[in-house]
């Protein structure tokens, strides 16, 4: 059932609007040279930070489709009746969401880096940092989606919740402190299924 759930969610993500957060990511990255000007040195210095801000804002876009449709349609209830714990469901949803978000974001980081004049070793470090950070972004997105599922104005609430929680990732990721970023990413990814599972349980009233 877990494998089937991951496949189903990944299929729904990819046939849905998986390109939307990626397009948004590229658009934000493209805004930076317009805002800063064409000074290559300056761009290269702020580049990694700008890519991270673009990634964080792009991570907000899919939140509303991650949990709420399945809650409203009774899928979460039926999964529980089929003996799948809420925590297992959210773990599967994190895995599926990462599959439709992480690899695409890493591919999109190449053109984003070109726009910001990041190349060579700096590009390799940036890609590695994104690779380490995306599981945590996917986990945070699912946890926040579960916490806000069914609430009015869930989209804006989700932004207010996710962005502060992602600040440690942003700091270590943009500062190239990959070990610390890895530790934060691990913590968020490991904790999120439990937070999201508890939120789903609490929503059954």
């Amino acid at each position: 059932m877990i494998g089937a759930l991951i496949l189903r969610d990944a299929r729904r993500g990819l046939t849905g609007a998986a390109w939307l957060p990626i397009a948004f990511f590229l658009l934000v990255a493209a805004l930076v040279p317009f805002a800063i000007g064409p000074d290559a040195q300056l761009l290269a210095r702020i580049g990694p930070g700008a890519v991270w801000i673009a990634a964080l804002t792009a991570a907000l876009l899919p939140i509303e489709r991650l949990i709420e449709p399945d809650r409203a349609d009774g899928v979460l209830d039926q999964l529980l009746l089929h003996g799948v714990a809420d925590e297992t469901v959210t773990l599967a949803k994190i895995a599926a969401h990462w599959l439709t978000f992480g690899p695409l974001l890493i591919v999109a980081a190449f053109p984003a880096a070109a726009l910001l004049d990041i190349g060579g070793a700096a590009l390799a470090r940036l890609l590695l940092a994104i690779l380490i950070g995306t599981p945590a972004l996917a986990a945070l997105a699912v946890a926040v989606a579960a916490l806000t599922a069914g609430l009015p104005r869930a989209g804006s609430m989700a932004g207010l919740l996710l962005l502060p929680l992602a600040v440690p990732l942003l700091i270590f990721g943009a500062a190239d402190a990959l070990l610390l970023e890895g530790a934060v990413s691990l913590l968020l990814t490991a904790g999120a299924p439990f937070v999201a599972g508890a939120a789903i349980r609490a929503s059954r009233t």
Partner: protein
Amino acid sequence: MKVLLRFEDVALRRGGRLLFEGLSFELREGERLQVTGPNGSGKSSLLRLAAGLLRAERGRVERSSLALSDDAVALDSELELGRALQFWSAPEKAMEALGLAHLGLVPVRLLSSGQLKRATLARVAASGASLWLLDEPLNALDADGAMKLGGVVERHLEAGGAVLAASHQKLGGEWRKLELGL
């Protein structure tokens, strides 16, 4: 006869309102029980409590393997009906029994509300669970659908299953009644 569902002195509160208290009953193999009562008396909540989706304020609920059909369709609307049901369990025989066999390749989003009701009933019938919880099973069903549902329920009872249904309508066959008041 094995007990498939047991309520012991159960009280349920929702949104600060006490829906019922001191409720005790048993449902054994081969038995069917209909929960009746006016709108808002807590029929659906009783089923969700029996399913373990709600928690009792007091008392104990013991349950065996069960399946629930309610208003939530829980089928992916972009898939064909056969594939959408397949996600939960192999549905061919249940689809046949409920008159859905010819709709296997139709996307779920194109089905009528009566056909969706049959689909949720088919999911329950295909689940292999011994206890069926049916919330308003006749809603949106036509005469043919109600008859087919009656046949499926009969066969499930003969095979040693049990059914708990919530409905204010008359269901086919002989049902024990449990009346909830307001």
